[in-house]
């Protein structure tokens, strides 16, 4: 945890990101985006498809550079991949040729830890995500939910101060997803990194986060920010039915709906023209 709470864990100021499109044009994915996440804060980001949520995460992680504006992690401008940042990708990114144990131990091994030490830490994390006994499996021998747990352990073993999650549970069925949400909260409480959690699922966003940010239809910028003051520790399945949750849901959905409709109208217009 950062010793000086005044410095934001993540800070984006006037960030614009443009891509060259295959047809030779320029596509603006983000325009003048401002966003901040305090140390230890859990921030969910929702927005219509294609509004630049994944792009925001790649900028914070240092995998891509902003076209304009500044991105800071722990007060320092991001110039490349930063050691204290973890990233769970939208699609499966565990290494298919490594066993579950080697996948989780990969981070410490890359960073120079000895095999023994890395394996011990990996076993500990596998236990924490509920995968003890699956050390020797290969990813294709696991269910989708188990692969997500491997990815989670793989990120958390590096003890990131900033954790970026790009729709990590989108591919899972509803029951598994709510189980994973609860487990994520439990693990997050242990090390308390600052989190940006991208999701399509508004319920999931409210159940998990301290703060929900709604982005506009692309180019993405902040439409509204909502504080979620529901008490912790939370249980995703139970919190859903409280009055506070329901009123937050309708309030945020009101902000999100018009953006989703805009994005939808745009995409159908593209198809028909």
């Amino acid at each position: 945890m950062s010793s000086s709470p005044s410095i934001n864990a993540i800070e984006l100021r006037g960030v614009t990101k443009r891509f060259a499109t295959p047809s030779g044009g320029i596509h603006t994915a983000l325009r003048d985006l401002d966003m901040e996440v305090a140390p230890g804060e859990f921030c969910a980001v929702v927005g219509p498809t294609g509004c630049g949520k994944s792009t925001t995460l790649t900028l914070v992680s240092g995998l891509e550079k902003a076209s304009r504006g500044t991105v800071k992690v722990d007060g320092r401008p991001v110039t490349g991949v930063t050691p204290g940042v973890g990233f769970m990708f939208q699609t499966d990114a565990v290494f298919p040729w490594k066993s579950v144990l080697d996948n989780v131990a990969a981070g410490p091994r890359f960073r120079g830890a000895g095999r023994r030490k890395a394996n011990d830490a990996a076993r500990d994390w596998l236990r924490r995500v509920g995968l003890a006994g699956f050390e020797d499996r290969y990813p294709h021998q696991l269910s989708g939910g188990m692969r997500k747990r491997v990815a989670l352990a793989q990120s958390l073993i590096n003890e990131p101060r900033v954790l970026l999650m790009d729709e990590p549970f989108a591919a899972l069925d509803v029951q598994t997803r709510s189980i994973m949400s609860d487990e994520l909260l439990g693990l997050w409480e242990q090390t308390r990194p600052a989190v940006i959690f991208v999701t399509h699922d508004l319920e999931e966003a409210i159940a998990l986060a301290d703060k929900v940010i709604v982005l506009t239809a692309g180019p993405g910028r902040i439409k509204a920010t909502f504080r979620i003051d529901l008490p912790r520790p939370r249980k995703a399945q139970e919190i859903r039915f409280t009055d506070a949750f329901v009123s937050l849901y309708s309030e945020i959905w009101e902000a999100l709906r018009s953006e989703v409709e805009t994005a939808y109208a745009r995409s159908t217009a593209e198809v028909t023209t």
Partner: protein
Amino acid sequence: MAVHQPAVVAVDADEGSVRSRISGRVRRRILINVCRVALLGGALGGWELGVNTNHIDPFFWGQPSGIYKQLKTWITDGTPQGSLADQILVTLQEAVYGFLIGVSLGVVLGIALGRNRFLADLFSPFIKVANSIPRIVLGALFTVAFGFGLTSKVILAVVLVFFGVFFNAFQGTREVDRNLLSNARILGASRWQTTRQVVLPSAFTWILASLHISFGFALIGAVVGELLGADKGMGLLIRSAQNNFNANGVLAGMAVIGVIALVAEALITALENRLLRWRPPQMAGDAGV
């Protein structure tokens, strides 16, 4: 894909159905092998019959019984240039050296160029030209330059093996999942670690696919090198049979080389299955021809 309890996947499928599936597979294997033997027997029998009924001239085309006799003579009395085992070993040594060197060069350069845009742009026109010329002709040059010994054959085999492996390694490097590369970077991998632990295993599927053809090329390189000029080896044996108008000798030499190629193929398949254990079975399955 939806699994509600992790325990479900940990338990094996119903044992009885697994067993019946296995016995079904064994039965199919046996049937296929019986059919293969019948096909081979039919072809050889037809050939022999064709010779006996004067439809095929054995002077040009040989005949199965003659090939068999020739092989027997070589095995029991040796060949004019020493024992048959010696000839096989010489050719095998040339082919294996050429194969190993060619594969190593192909993998290293393929991955290096696949990972480095500048090198790729620099070398690509040269490699394309070198690949499109009929390289086997270089064998004549090598024989003159490096003599009748091992070196000229190994170099010819290397030249033949290199390109197939190189292009596959290059393509495999280019096709690595970008997500996996990003993940490795985030987890703290250096460029070299990424190459070793992400690019190489990922490109391995492509590289191994090229090895099957490559050993064949290595054998061709060794045998053609010997045909062009050698003092030992299967190529020389075939050459002297040809000089004596002994069609059965040429074909017997080819049969021996064929057996070598089959054994090598089986070894490479075993290696492939070992190295690609991580792949889901429907991808790693025996779809080989």
